[in-house]
């Protein structure tokens, strides 16, 4: 996801996963290339439905600009959204 470069936004993103008890297998945070915007990638251990649900919760957070589910275990397409 692309999100505002702010600790509080990062904290909220973790909160979404913690509340739903979705384990994080990996994560990476990088500058996105646009000033003030970071790119955050989570690798989650979750089925497609959970990943989708989590993505929707991320999507509605203030400070999150876009969310993509890159790959689902049981999805055939590379990029779903």
């Amino acid at each position, binding site marked *: 996801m692309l999100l*505002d470069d702010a600790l*509080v936004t990062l*904290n*909220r993103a973790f*909160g979404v996963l913690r*509340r739903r008890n979705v384990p994080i297998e990996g994560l990476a945070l990088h500058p996105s290339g646009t000033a003030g915007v970071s790119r955050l990638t989570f690798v989650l251990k979750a089925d497609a439905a959970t990943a989708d*649900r989590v993505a*929707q*919760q991320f*999507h*509605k957070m*203030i*400070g999150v600009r876009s969310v993509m589910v890159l790959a689902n275990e049981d999805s055939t397409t590379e990029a779903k959204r």
Partner: protein
Amino acid sequence: MSEMLSGAEILCRALVDAGVEVIFGYPGGAIMPFYHALPDHPQLRHILVRHEQAAAHAADGYARASGRVGVCVATSGPGATNLVTGLAAAHMDNSPVVAITGQVSRPMIGRDAFQETDIIGITLPITKQNYQVQDVTELADVVAEAMAVALEGRPGPVLIDVPKDVQNQKIEWHPPQKPRHPRAGARGQSLTPGASPGSLEDGVRAAARLIKGAERPLIMAGHGVILAEAYAEVQALAEKTGIPVITTLLGISGFPDGHALHLGMPGMHGEVHVNRAIQHADVIIGIGLRFDDRVTGNTASFAPQARIIHIELDRAEIGKNVPVAVGIVGDARDVTRRLVAAVEPRRCERWLEHIRGFVRPRTEAFRGDLSPETILASIYEASHGECTIVTDVGQHQMWVAKLYRYERPNTHITSGGLGAMGFAVPAAMGVHLARPNGTVWAISGDGGFQMNMAEMATMVQEGLPVKMAVFNNGYLGMVRQWQQFFHEKRYSCTPIWSPDYVKLAAAYGIPGYRVKQASELADVVGRANAEAGPALVEFVIEQEANVYPMIPPGGSLSEPIEAEPAAAAGH
């Protein structure tokens, strides 16, 4: 022309610029610069509460009644933490509240300074957004943005934490710019499972097709109908199609109770015919609701035959709790208006007849004649049906939801999602300030009233003529009911002592009354209602009355408890 202003002055100006007229708050060390600046801004009326929780609930009540942002202010540490319950209530019920908290000065933050708490961390999961202002140059923009964020899309609370040294920082003042990240608001789109998000029109067409083919359709109207002021649209949809309407706890007063197509409230304490209608429906049109577990009971057995059309502003709600056939993301008013245009006129007479067959006589038994019905009817009579009712949490809340006759939009206000006892009294103060020309009744149990009854002092000091009704059954009634049904009638810690409410009111200089018989109702309630200032009426009601019907938690809507369990009866 520029001038040098302190952060505190800028904060006041930014609130004035945002159109704020009322602030509920309580001062303390870390917010003193703000309170120092406040008297220079007489446009901002400050209401001094007796507990910060009340400030947050009052701001929430103000927001729900006015549709504008409610603002509350507290100091750092204990002041800020006291706001938490009120913010959580506003969060669960989508109420636009902005909370401003003082914080220790920046160099002290993170050092466990006196009255430092990480209020940002504490409120992360119960706010839509929160900000700690790091520099005075950001302050005006942050306030403007916070006000916008609280209101836009699905409303909710926002917190602004302002370190004391930022309040004291002086800079050259420039009027606020536009919010930094104005979000586009919810753009309407349809979200059907398995398909890519289509256009709003596709969703509306699909919904209209489902409605056309339905034999047993239902409309379920939630809080979104009130937030979007979609009253006329929902009524038009019902009348064009003859589809009966169910209003959820927070949807009550979104559709007139007396309307021939109105069925009542669903869920845990919903009437039998309402829940049966859900279980028999083949199409449900859910407008602005989240299919909360108190509404659905066990979701596995919820509406087993129904295909659900879900109209909802927040796309994350669609498919979250129940599977949907057609999801339409958008404003309830806009989408419903389009749906009205797209549906063909029809009637549902046979289905209505079918539902009428489910109607049960009410089974609640009262020893005396002072039943919730008679009490609520007397409030309706005294106020000519024109008051706003704010309820607390418990049995009385369910009785009011089911038995009060709501005819006017947005006149029922309650803490639904959080179910926060102590809500009614302070929220009613906020409602009065939003609707100064109307009457507001705060209806509480003897438990919830005692949680925030200190606010009577606020009413007196600030001249807030709230009418308070206390349903005194000597118990934490709703919990006692659960103990009766599910815990072998072991009334552990639910009998609750009350002070003499008439004398208590008198100590505050508030007229207080006690009603023990229905024959006294018209006179006493009439007098309390007519008081120029606040008034309190205690209703001494049956101690062990229950709210029926009841779906046991996690149970199916098809299996209500409809009467006294045999083993537990016999008082």
